[in-house]
C-alpha cells in the first residue's frame, strides 16, 4: 500500500504539544500528543520548560508518523501553530534556553507595563502596534528578563542571544534559522501594524536590542528545511494558534468569524486588508499574510472564563463529576430559575474592562437548585460571547453571517443552542474540532503547492453540526437586560478595601 503525500502540523499549545498528519484531501490520518508540566513558582507566574517542549516535539512527530505507517519522506510540508505571546531567550551558540518559557498567562512583567504607561507611552504603543501595552504581550516579558537575568542584556548586545515565541524556538531547533511569523510578531507590542516590521520607536520604548529579535516573515513561506525530526521536510507555515483556527475554519472573507470554546473563548472576525483600531476591548491583530499579497487583519475579542468556570464547578464546588456533565445537570431544568452567574474571577474583559470586578451569583431564591446553577454557568458563557459579538458589531459594519465554532465545549449542545439563541445567529461546527492544527496544515500545504489557493481550502470546510436560533425576541431582550444587571452587580467589588472596618 502506498502512503499518500502528507502534510504535518505541529500544534504547540499551552497544555500540550501535538502532531497531526493530513492527507491531500485534508483528511486527518493520525495524531499524537504529549502534555508538558505547568510551573507556577509564585502567584501570577506561569512557566513552561522549553527543553521539555522540544523533547515532546521529538516524540510526537515520530509517533504520528508510525501511526500512519509513514516516514519523513512521505511528508511534503510542515506547518506550526503555537500558543501565542509565550516566549523565551536562548544561547545562539549552544541552543540552550537562558530562561523558562514565560507564558501568556504570566503577569510578572506588570512593573514594566506600569512604567511604560506612567512614562506616557500608552497611546504611542497603541498607535504603532495596534494593541495597548499589556503583560499579555511578549515585549514586557523580554524587558523583564533583560532586567533580571544576570549579563543577559550585555550578551544580547553582543549578539549571543536569541529571543522568540514558541514557533521561533521550534523552527530554530528544527531548521537552525531565527525567524518568526507575522501573526506571532503582531502579539509582541514591538511590531508596527502598518509596515509589519519591528518598530524602532517601540524597541526604544521597551528598551529591546534589535539583535535579539527574529526576522519577521509571512505566514506561509519556506523558512527552512528540517535537519532534525523530519529531515529534509520544508517548514512552510507558522502562525499563532487563534489565527490558525481562523485559517482552519477558512474564514477568508471579510465578516467571517470563528469562536473557540476552551477554558476561555476566543472570537476572531476577518476585517479585511485594512487594520482596525483596537477599541471597545477588542484587539486588532494580523490574521495572516501570504507572500506577495496584502495582509489580512482580524479583530479579536476574548472571554477569560468559559470552560474554566465549568472546571471550577467540578473541582472547587463538586457540582459535577466531569466537565461535560454540566450539560446533563443543566438539562435537568427548563430554565435558569432566575439565577445568573457572572464569572469575573479576575475582573471583566471585553467590552467592560473592569479589573475591580469579581464573580457573583445573583437571583437566588429557595426555588433555585443545582440544575439552575448549571444552566446559569452555561448561559454565562453564551452571554459573555454575546457581549463580545455586540462590541464587534459596533466596529464591523455588516452583520455576521454566522459563527463558526470549535473547541472542546462544542460537544455541549445545550451551550451551543444557547449561544445561537442569545446571538440570534446560526452556529456551525466543522468536522474536526482540531481547527488550530487544520489551519497550520492548510497554510503549510498552500505554501508547498498541495492546495492551489484559498478557494480550494474553503471548499474543504465541512459542516458537522449546526444550531439555529430558536428564542423569541422578547425573551432574548429580557434575558439580555437581566444579564447586564447581574454584570453591574459584579463590577467594582474590589473597590471595597480590606482595611474598611464596620
Amino acid at each position, binding site marked *: 500500500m502506498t502512503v499518500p503525500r502528507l502534510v504535518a502540523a505541529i500544534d504547540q499549545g499551552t497544555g500540550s504539544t501535538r502532531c497531526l498528519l493530513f492527507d491531500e484531501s485534508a483528511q486527518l490520518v493520525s495524531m499524537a500528543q504529549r502534555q508538558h508540566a505547568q510551573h507556577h513558582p509564585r502567584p501570577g507566574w506561569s512557566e513552561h520548560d522549553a527543553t521539555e517542549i522540544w523533547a515532546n516535539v521529538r516524540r510526537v512527530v515520530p509517533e504520528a508518523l508510525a501511526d500512519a505507517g509513514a516516514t519523513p519522506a512521505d511528508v511534503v510540508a510542515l506547518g506550526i501553530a503555537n500558543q501565542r505571546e509565550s516566549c523565551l531567550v536562548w544561547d545562539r551558540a549552544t541552543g540552550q534556553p537562558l530562561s523558562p518559557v514565560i507564558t501568556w498567562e504570566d503577569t510578572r512583567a506588570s512593573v514594566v507595563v506600569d512604567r511604560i504607561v506612567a512614562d506616557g507611552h500608552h497611546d504611542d504603543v497603541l498607535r504603532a502596534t495596534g494593541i495597548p501595552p499589556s503583560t499579555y504581550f511578549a515585549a514586557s516579558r523580554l524587558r523583564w528578563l533583560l532586567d533580571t537575568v544576570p549579563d543577559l542584556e550585555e550578551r544580547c548586545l553582543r549578539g549571543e542571544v536569541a529571543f522568540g515565541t514558541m514557533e521561533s524556538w521550534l523552527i530554530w531547533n528544527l531548521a537552525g534559522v531565527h525567524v518568526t511569523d507575522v501573526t506571532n510578531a503582531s502579539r509582541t507590542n514591538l511590531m508596527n501594524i502598518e509596515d509589519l516590521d519591528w518598530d524602532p520607536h517601540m524597541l526604544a520604548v521597551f528598551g529591546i536590542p534589535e539583535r535579539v529579535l527574529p526576522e519577521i516573515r509571512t505566514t506561509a513561506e519556506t523558512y527552512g528545511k528540517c535537519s532534525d525530526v523530519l529531515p529534509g521536510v520544508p517548514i512552510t507555515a507558522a502562525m499563532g494558534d487563534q489565527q490558525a483556527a481562523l485559517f482552519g475554519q477558512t474564514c477568508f472573507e471579510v465578516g467571517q468569524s470563528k469562536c473557540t470554546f476552551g477554558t476561555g473563548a476566543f472570537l476572531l472576525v476577518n476585517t479585511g486588508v485594512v487594520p482596525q483600531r483596537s477599541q471597545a476591548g477588542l484587539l486588532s491583530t494580523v490574521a495572516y499574510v501570504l507572500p506577495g499579497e496584502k495582509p489580512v487583519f482580524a479583530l479579536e475579542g476574548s472571554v477569560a472564563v468559559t470552560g474554566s468556570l465549568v472546571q471550577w464547578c467540578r473541582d472547587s464546588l463538586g457540582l459535577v463529576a466531569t466537565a461535560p*456533565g*454540566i450539560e*446533563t445537570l443543566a438539562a435537568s431544568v427548563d430554565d435558569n430559575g432566575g439565577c445568573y452567574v457572572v464569572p469575573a474571577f479576575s475582573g471583566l474583559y471585553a467590552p467592560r474592562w473592569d479589573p475591580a470586578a469579581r464573580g457573583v451569583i445573583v437571583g437566588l431564591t429557595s426555588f433555585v437548585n443545582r440544575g439552575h446553577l448549571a444552566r446559569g454557568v452555561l448561559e454565562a458563557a453564551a452571554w459573555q460571547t454575546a457581549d463580545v459579538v455586540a462590541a464587534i458589531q459596533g466596529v464591523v459594519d455588516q452583520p455576521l453571517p454566522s459563527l463558526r465554532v470549535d473547541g472542546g465545549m462544542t*460537544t455541549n*449542545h445545550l451551550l451551543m443552542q444557547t449561544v445561537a439563541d442569545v446571538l440570534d445567529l446560526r452556529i456551525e461546527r466543522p*468536522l474536526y*474540532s482540531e481547527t488550530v492544527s487544520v489551519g497550520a496544515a492548510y497554510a503549510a500545504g498552500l505554501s508547498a503547492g498541495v492546495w492551489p489557493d484559498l478557494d480550494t481550502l474553503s471548499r474543504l470546510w*465541512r459542516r*458537522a453540526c449546526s*444550531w439555529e436560533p430558536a428564542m423569541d425576541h422578547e425573551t432574548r431582550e429580557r434575558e439580555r437586560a437581566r444579564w447586564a444587571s447581574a454584570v453591574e452587580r459584579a463590577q467594582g467589588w474590589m473597590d471595597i478595601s480590606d482595611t474598611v472596618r464596620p
Partner: protein
Amino acid sequence: MPGNVQAVERAAAVLTVVASASRPLGLADIAAAVDLPKTTVHGLLSTLRSVGWVEQDRPTGAYRVSRALAGIAQSLDVADLRSAATPWMDALAAETGLEVHLVRIQGSAAVVVQHVYRPDNSPQRLRVGEEMPLHATASGKVLLANATPEPVAAAARPERFTRHTLVEGVELEAELDRVRRDGYAMEVGEYYPDVSSVAVPVRDSLGDTAAALAVLGPRQELPSGNGRPDLVTPLVRAAGSVSRTLWISA
C-alpha cells in the same frame, strides 16, 4: 511517604468496578475486572457488604453499590459519552462520506445522543434528542440485541413504518440473533423507505453495550444484500476508539 495499603487499594478497585457497572455484577465478573482471585475478591466483597457499602441482589447474588453510596455510583453520563465519541464520529463521517449517529436506549426507544452531518454541506437538521423505534433502525436493533436486562417490551405489536419494517416476533428474534452473531445490524428502508443504515455496538469497560454507532445514507448508497458490508470495518474501528477513550477518561 509510606506505601499504599494493599487491602484498601484492592477494596477501592472492587468498589470502583461495582459502582461503574450499569447492572449488578457477579463475583466472577468482578474478579476478572480487577484481576484478582475469586477467593480474595469474595473476602473484600463480604467486608464491603458488612460495612454497608455494597449490597447483594437476592435472586442472583450479584453485587451492586448500596443506596447509601448512590452518589458514587455514576452510570455513564450521556454528555461524557458524547464528548468521548465526537472526534471519532467526525473521522468516521469524513472517511465514509455518510451521516453518523450515536444512539442510546431510553425506555423503549432509541434516542440520538450525538449527530454528525453527512459531510457535503447540504442543508441538514440536528437530530440530537430525537426518538427512533428500536425495532426499525440499525442502531435500535444493536441496542435491542445487546440489552441487559431486556428493555421493557413495547405494549403491542411493533409499528410498521414501511413495507420492509420487521414486525413479526419470530422475524425480529431471528434478526436480533443474527445481530448478536455478526456484531453489526443493518437497516434497509425499514424506518424511512429511502434510508439505509449500518450500526455496531460501543462497549464499556465491562463489555456491555453503552451505545450504538451508526452510519446512515440514501438506500442506493448503502449495501442491502447479504454478506458483511465494507462499512462494518471503519465502524468497528471507530467504536473501538470511542470505547478506549471512555476507559481512559473513566
